[in-house]
């Protein structure tokens, strides 16, 4: 039902939008409308029709307002005030002029704003680059979304044990049993000497089924992808290898020899594998040639299986059917009570999310992306806070301008637009500087993030879109509060005179400064704690002497056969203290196997870690014996019949007085000694029960202890001896202490990131504090002049001025401490052996922050305190 009264009421309400209409005016218009309606009803129209028609005749608020405006106002902008202003070019010029003028008058603040934002943006830019790189992994394959890696998983001691590799018969079985799997490709790899004419290099050779080119997008430059791997002796090589072996000659049809195996004929050349692939190879040969007898063995999990699924494939459907599959093909597993299953891992997830056993290469980490993101965003936030703080702190200078603009006819929207525009301009300048900075810092960032990104990445479309988004985000983040704040200035108050109304922005300003310092202090604490943990790792006794030990990998049959002879040769040199062959290498290089000890029933088989060692192992690495004796050549039975346990093993195996007790891992033997626990893995891992056993076929490394200060000489000697024993193999070596440091690569990187972050955030926060102090000092010039006249000392004034800021920094500490403590405790929990977080760290970070804040502020304070009061009070 149409309600005429209400319709008229609404129409009237609408008229109120037009500020110039006074009540009487509106009443008059309303009575006019009613007259019109009355007339129309008299003519025979319904209420509703009459109302509509009358409004059409009399007009809406908009059209009536426009008429009113035409008659009464000589407009400046050509538009009535209630209408949103059009974009005016003339005004834009004025805005830019004002912004530039302001920037020129306040060079220091503009610099701080631009520099601060630029630092924050640089961090974000580098991060964006990094994330883009990480996310781009394996997406270059046309079928990326349909490719999965088949992995296997076993439930072991309640833990899911996942392994990236699978056995060779899996691929054909998958195709046979799952119609939704279109193709399956097996990949294996191994190191070989590749010989061509006089050149000979150790290379990692990959082997794959011929379908590899259908499943993955590895385009061939030469050769036919359909037939390139059909022949058992065919070999496809990368562009780079084509150059390396054949220079400019055509490689097709040439023969490369894999030493001690067979000849291969080059049938194709593929484009170098992009860096953002989770596995990369330079040589590809047929899988069946390589796997040989293992092609039908389910129990050898040495290969990788990738499947191409049909469109719309759901991994869940695979999970549902695989129990039947495992039962059919690997029923023996189920009989033995092993909880065994296959997992299909989406190709595009492998790089960021997969950290399982036997990965082809070590992958990235989504957690690290999170940490990086948080750090970069925090620094950007600090920079935005600076902008907000200056804008609100120097509002006095701008309120008059806003007042005048408003009086002339600017509305709130225009003022907001102007100030947002200004912040966007600053953020554009910052963006440009950030681009330059990022380009400059890219090499350093590459080392930090272990990437090799190039400058070109900065100019990719996605990156540019990201930059624009970042610029807008920063501009809006920094500018919206000042814009809202300044646009709400009342013109009458602004123009009133020198006694400006006090705006309550200082509370916000103070909280922003506190937040800035809280973030910076958080970074300082993180840096200190990581450094202290690193120190702890470096200075804690590992249970072995890691200094002056050279480690040589023994990947050569000849050398392994004559290892004792080589050791003898080496000990002839006075610079060599002792050498020992073993399977020992820091990190996860121990074997995990079932053991038996005296007193156990035969079917009880708990696990223990063990290493293959020789007679000289303990003495070479200076590992302490706590009971029994070392392996000795005087006891022939020691080879193969004796075990040495570490203290933890003694505890865990429950052997009381272990010496002389029966023990078995490989052969049954006796325990002859107990060693003090030593760290054979990183500090992230608890020292596990360990057994040492003389087992020459397990030797992998030769550890050579040398006399300090003769490294170069010894290395020359070692290489010469190595070449005597293994002329076909390049002499490789590393230093034990560096190998141990390698275990903490991620931690060291984190330390570097936090050091840089702490530096950047403190820099930006101090810049902000510096500017704020200057503004405060300026505002209080007169007050200080009077204080001085009345006899205040310079020291007193300096303290007076600095005290406020120091209080904020102290408050920031209170906020940062618990948060940083919580976060760092979490990080430290990742270590089995860790430093304790002492109060000292927190106090130190507080002192550092306070000192930086004080130095920043005191420059201004002292300058103000030293000023001659005559200068400041002259004009009063």
């Amino acid at each position, binding site marked *: 039902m149409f309600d005429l009264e209400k319709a008229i009421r609404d129409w009237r309400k609408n008229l109120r939008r037009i500020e110039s209409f006074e009540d*009487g*005016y509106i*009443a*008059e*218009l309303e*009575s*006019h409308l*009613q*007259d*019109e309606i009355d007339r129309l009803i008299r003519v025979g129209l319904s209420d509703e029709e009459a109302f509509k028609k009358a409004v059409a*005749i*009399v*007009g809406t608020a908009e*059209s*009536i307002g*426009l*008429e*009113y405006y*035409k*008659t*009464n106002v000589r407009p400046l902008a050509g538009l009535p005030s209630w209408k949103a202003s059009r974009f005016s070019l003339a005004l834009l010029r004025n805005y830019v002029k004002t912004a530039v003028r302001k920037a020129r008058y306040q060079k220091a603040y503009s610099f701080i704003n631009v520099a601060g934002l630029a630092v924050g943006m640089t961090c974000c830019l580098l991060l964006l680059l990094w994330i883009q790189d990480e996310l781009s992994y394996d997406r270059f394959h046309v079928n990326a979304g349909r490719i999965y890696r088949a992995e296997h998983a076993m439930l072991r001691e309640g833990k899911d044990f996942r392994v990236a590799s699978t056995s060779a018969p899996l691929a054909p079985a998958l195709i046979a049993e799952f119609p939704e799997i279109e193709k399956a490709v097996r990949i294996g790899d191994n190191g070989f000497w590749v010989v061509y004419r006089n050149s000979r290099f150790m290379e990692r050779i990959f082997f794959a089924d011929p379908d590899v080119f259908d499943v993955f997008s590895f385009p061939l430059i030469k050769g036919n992808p359909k037939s390139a791997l059909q022949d058992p002796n065919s070999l496809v090589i990368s562009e780079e290898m084509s150059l390396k072996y054949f220079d400019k000659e055509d490689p097709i049809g040439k023969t490369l020899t894999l030493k001690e195996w067979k000849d291969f004929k080059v049938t194709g050349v593929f484009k170098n594998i992009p860096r953002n692939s989770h596995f990369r190879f330079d040589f590809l040969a047929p899988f069946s040639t390589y796997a040989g007898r293992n092609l039908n063995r389910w129990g050898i999990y040495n290969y990788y299986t990738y499947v191409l699924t049909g469109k719309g494939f759901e991994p869940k459907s695979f999970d549902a059917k695989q129990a039947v599959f495992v039962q059919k093909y690997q029923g023996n597993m189920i009989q033995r009570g092993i909880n065994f299953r296959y997992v299909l891992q989406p190709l595009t997830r492998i790089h960021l999310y997969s950290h399982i056993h036997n990965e082809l290469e070590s992958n990235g980490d989504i957690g690290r992306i999170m940490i990086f993101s948080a750090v970069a965003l925090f620094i950007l936030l600090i920079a935005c806070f600076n902008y907000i703080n200056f804008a609100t702190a120097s509002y006095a200078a701008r309120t008059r301008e806003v007042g005048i603009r408003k009086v002339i006819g600017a509305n709130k929207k225009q003022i907001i637009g102007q100030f947002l525009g200004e912040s966007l301009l600053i953020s554009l300048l910052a963006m440009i500087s950030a681009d330059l900075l990022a380009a400059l810092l890219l090499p350093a960032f590459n080392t930090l993030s272990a990437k090799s990104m190039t400058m070109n990445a900065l100019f990719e479309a996605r990156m540019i879109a990201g930059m624009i988004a970042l610029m807008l985000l920063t501009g809006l983040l920094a500018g919206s509060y000042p814009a809202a704040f300044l646009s709400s200035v009342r013109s009458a108050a602004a123009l009133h005179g020198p006694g400006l109304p006090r705006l309550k922005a200082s509370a916000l300003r103070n909280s922003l400064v506190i937040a800035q310092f809280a973030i910076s202090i958080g970074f300082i604490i993180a840096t200190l704690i990581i450094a202290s943990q690193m120190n702890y790792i470096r200075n804690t006794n590992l249970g072995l002497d890691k200094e002056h030990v050279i480690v040589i990998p023994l990947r050569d049959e000849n050398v392994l056969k004559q290892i004792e002879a080589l050791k003898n040769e080496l000990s002839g040199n006075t610079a060599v203290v002792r050498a020992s062959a073993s399977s020992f290498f820091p990190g996860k290089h121990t074997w995990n196997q079932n053991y038996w000890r005296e007193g156990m029933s035969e079917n009880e088989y708990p696990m223990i870690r063990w290493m293959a060692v020789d007679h000289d192992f303990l003495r070479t690495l200076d590992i302490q014996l706590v009971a029994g004796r070392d392996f000795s050549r005087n006891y022939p039975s020691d080879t193969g019949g004796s075990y040495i346990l570490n203290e933890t093993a003694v505890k865990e195996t429950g052997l009381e007085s272990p010496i002389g007790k029966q023990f078995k891992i490989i052969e049954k033997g006796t325990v002859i000694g107990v060693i003090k626990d030593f760290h054979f893995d990183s500090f992230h891992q608890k020292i596990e029960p360990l057994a040492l056993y003389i087992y020459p076929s397990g030797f992998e490394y030769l550890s050579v202890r040398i006399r300090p200060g003769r490294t170069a000489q010894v290395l020359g000697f070692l290489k010469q001896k190595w070449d005597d024993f293994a002329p076909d193999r390049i002499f490789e070596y590393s230093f034990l202490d560096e190998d141990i440091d390698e275990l903490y690569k991620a931690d060291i990187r984190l330390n570097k990131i936090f050091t840089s972050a702490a530096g950047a955030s403190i820099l930006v926060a101090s810049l902000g504090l510096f500017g704020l102090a200057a503004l405060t000092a300026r505002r209080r010039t007169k007050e200080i002049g009077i204080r001085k006249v009345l006899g205040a000392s310079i020291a007193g004034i300096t303290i007076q001025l600095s005290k406020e800021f120091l209080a904020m920094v102290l408050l920031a500490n209170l906020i940062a401490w618990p948060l940083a403590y919580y976060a760092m405790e979490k990080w430290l929990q990742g270590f089995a052996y860790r430093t304790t977080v002492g109060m000292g760290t927190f106090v130190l970070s507080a002192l550092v922050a306070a000192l930086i804040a004080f130095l920043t502020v005191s420059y201004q304070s002292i300058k103000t305190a030293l000023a001659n009061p005559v200068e400041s009070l002259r004009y009063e």
Partner: protein
Amino acid sequence: MISKALMAASTKPIILSILLEGEDYGYNIIQRVKEASGGSLDWSDGMLYPVLQRMEKEGLINSKWIISDEGRHRKYYTITDKGLKELESEMIQWRSVYEALTRLCSPLPAAD
């Protein structure tokens, strides 16, 4: 149709002439203009009131609120002395324009 400029120029004298016959209110003024011109002077309703307001400000007319028989508030306008003088001078101007035009252009062109 009367051109925009002419309309603007003639509004004031027309309103004053109508009010010469006695007080009146906005709605009625529009009706009478329509009648008198035979429809060729079609003022938009919204345009009248700003003009009335301005004329009042200039002191040419006065206004008062009267409650009509139906209980409706209406604003009635009356002409002031100043308004009378203004109308007189306007009429002189219009007449001289009219006479000049007729003298210059007679006989009048046939309207097509």
